[in-house]
């Protein structure tokens, strides 16, 4: 088993999928010979040729729109949007088209496809290279929204997404691209979508998180443990469709819940987790559910480390619900 970074695991997943199936095509801006601005597609054009990994015109609407057309006609497109911040010209194609096609055609036409895109802060990217837009997409029936946090899951979830019969938005935490390493099995394996992962066991406080916030939550949990608070850290991995039963179960196990995400708090995914728990197991709650999130402001550049939830803020929330 190789030790890979998260971006290497993404690359490995793409190569694995392309080796297994000639209908898998990878395309987007600069994904060809350059291998992508983060090198997620490094070496693909060389190994599979320009017909299977290629650069497109600079148009997110065109990338996703053509991916839909390819998918309805039998190919398996894996489109890259260079930064999630630039996905909005394709919002119509994703939300109005890809997500609704199966439904609106009475099941006659479908578009199994993957849109990969790096999201989140931590690289000094400012307003337009740092956003976490998952909530926009989680409000879209028909779409799946997947966010890995480890190299193992990045590969297994991406392979599962490529095989999935429905369109998947695969959000990659760019802050973790090279900052996490882990063991990744060779060849094909899948991590089931809509299953959460217990990242740390604990009976004191449940911390729900995903993507780049998982290592942050784990660091906070480490510090909490030193203070005698054992945290159950849950990596949601798939936000839509969410493993609701798993979420409810994990919350009941401690009765104290913190939800962490980088995206702005208002109408963020943490609100949905809070509502699910309030509707299903409020009587189990020993303390108010606390959200730790990005501020309800645009994403700043120089002070991004203040904007993004860090172990300091997460630990503070853990202590608040513990001491309530």
């Amino acid at each position, binding site marked *: 088993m190789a030790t890979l970074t998260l971006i290497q695991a993404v690359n490995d997943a793409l190569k694995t999928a392309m080796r297994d199936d000639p209908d898998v095509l990878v395309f987007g801006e600069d994904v060809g010979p350059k291998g992508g601005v983060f090198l997620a597609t490094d070496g693909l054009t060389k190994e599979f040729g320009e*017909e299977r990994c290629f650069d497109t015109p600079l148009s997110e*609407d*065109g990338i996703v*729109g*053509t991916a839909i057309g390819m998918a309805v006609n039998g*190919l398996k497109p894996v489109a890259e949007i260079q930064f999630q911040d630039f996905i909005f010209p394709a919002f119509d*194609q994703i939300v109005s088209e890809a997500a609704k096609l199966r439904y609106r055609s009475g099941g006659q*036409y479908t578009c199994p496809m993957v849109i990969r895109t790096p999201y989140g802060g931590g690289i000094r990217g400012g307003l337009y290279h740092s956003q976490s837009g998952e909530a926009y997409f989680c409000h879209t029936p028909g779409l799946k929204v997947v966010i890995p946090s480890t190299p193992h899951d990045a590969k297994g979830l991406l392979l599962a997404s490529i095989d999935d019969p429905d369109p998947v938005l695969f959000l990659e935490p760019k802050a973790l691209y090279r900052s996490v390493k882990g063991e990744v099995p060779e060849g094909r394996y899948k991590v089931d979508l809509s299953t959460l992962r217990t990242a740390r066991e604990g009976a004191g406080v449940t911390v729900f998180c995903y993507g780049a916030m998982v290592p942050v939550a784990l660091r906070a949990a480490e510090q909490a443990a030193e203070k005698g608070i054992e945290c159950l850290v849950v990596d949601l991995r798939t936000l839509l469709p969410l493993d609701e039963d798993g979420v409810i179960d994990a919350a009941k196990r401690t009765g104290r819940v913190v939800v962490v995400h980088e995206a702005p708090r208002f109408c963020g995914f943490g609100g949905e987790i809070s509502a699910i728990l309030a509707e299903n197991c409020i009587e189990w709650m020993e303390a108010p559910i606390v959200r730790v999130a990005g501020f309800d402001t645009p994403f700043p550049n120089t002070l991004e480390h203040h904007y993004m939830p860090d172990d300091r803020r997460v630990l503070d929330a853990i202590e608040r619900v513990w001491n309530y």
Partner: protein
Amino acid sequence: MTATEMYSLIKPDGGVKGKDPKLAPDELLHIYRTMLRVRAFDEVCMKLQRSGRIGFSIPNRGVEATQVGAAAALRKTDWIFPSYRDFGMALYHGVTPTEMMHTMYGNGADCAKGRQMPVHFTFKEPIKFFSISSPIGTHIVQAVGTAHAMRYRKEKNAVLASFGDGGTSSLGFHSGLNFAGVWKSPVVFLCQNNQWAISCPSSSQTASESYAIKAQAYGMPGVLVDGNDVLAVRQVVLDALERARKGGGPTLVEAYTFRMGGHSTSDDPTKYVPKKLLLEWEKKDPVARFERYLAKKKLWKAPLREKIYAECMDEVGDAVKIAEATPPPALETIFSDVYETVPRHIRRQGQAAFDLAARKGDAAAGGGAFPL
């Protein structure tokens, strides 16, 4: 054929300019009957809407030659990415008025299971007639993706993407033509310039000399064709498809025509279409023009129109009876087809809705009036 000089075949008196395509009589009469079938379907749907039996329809009067002419150029293995005003394309290829009427009613036999407004057809047989969505221009770029898949697999098929003059202002038009030009995709873009985007005239869409000339900027040929000349449209689209099949890449065809009815049954065109202009275009009626051609071929004489139209009205009338007798979709259809497998949260919501219906009865149906 050029982007600024309009190509036509049938002269106003029914004679032929240039080379007669010499279609078999059966084919000519199928084209003619399809145009009348569209017209009959329109007339019935207008009455159904006015009497409150369906909520909405889209009139096709005036643009039948463009729809049917383009459809006649396609093979069954080609794909159509239609606009909402393309009834004639489906009918030409053998979709039945009954199948279409089910969608007008949104009943349990509707191809979209009652999920879409009337008119938003989806068919896979007898030709790929891609699912229509309401946003304008989104399908243009999707058509390029489908064409790209054909090219990738080295098939000899091609795609027809149809849209109106308003559609040329959309993001999808630009992305679609740009991608197709770069990729040399086997796709024919058919801009049906019926001169109106609901109430907005063509002059509010573009300052360009023609729509067809926009092709030049995307590195593909543009052809302006008389959209009221069914054989000219067929010829131009056929030539473009042949070029596409041979790897020659895409073409933008602008069919210059006129929408003689409203945008939809919810629209009153007398508010914005000058009466004089309408009368002018009434004289260019595509059905009458084709009749003069058929007459010269000894395939038409009065009262053939009345005879065929009456047959079409009977067909559509039967379709209405069948559609009205078909029950609405089951409650379950709200919750299926969102994903291949119904996820737990949707399953729960569905179960709650079924339980509520069992306890308190069905929800009250709405009035069915579309306010546009």
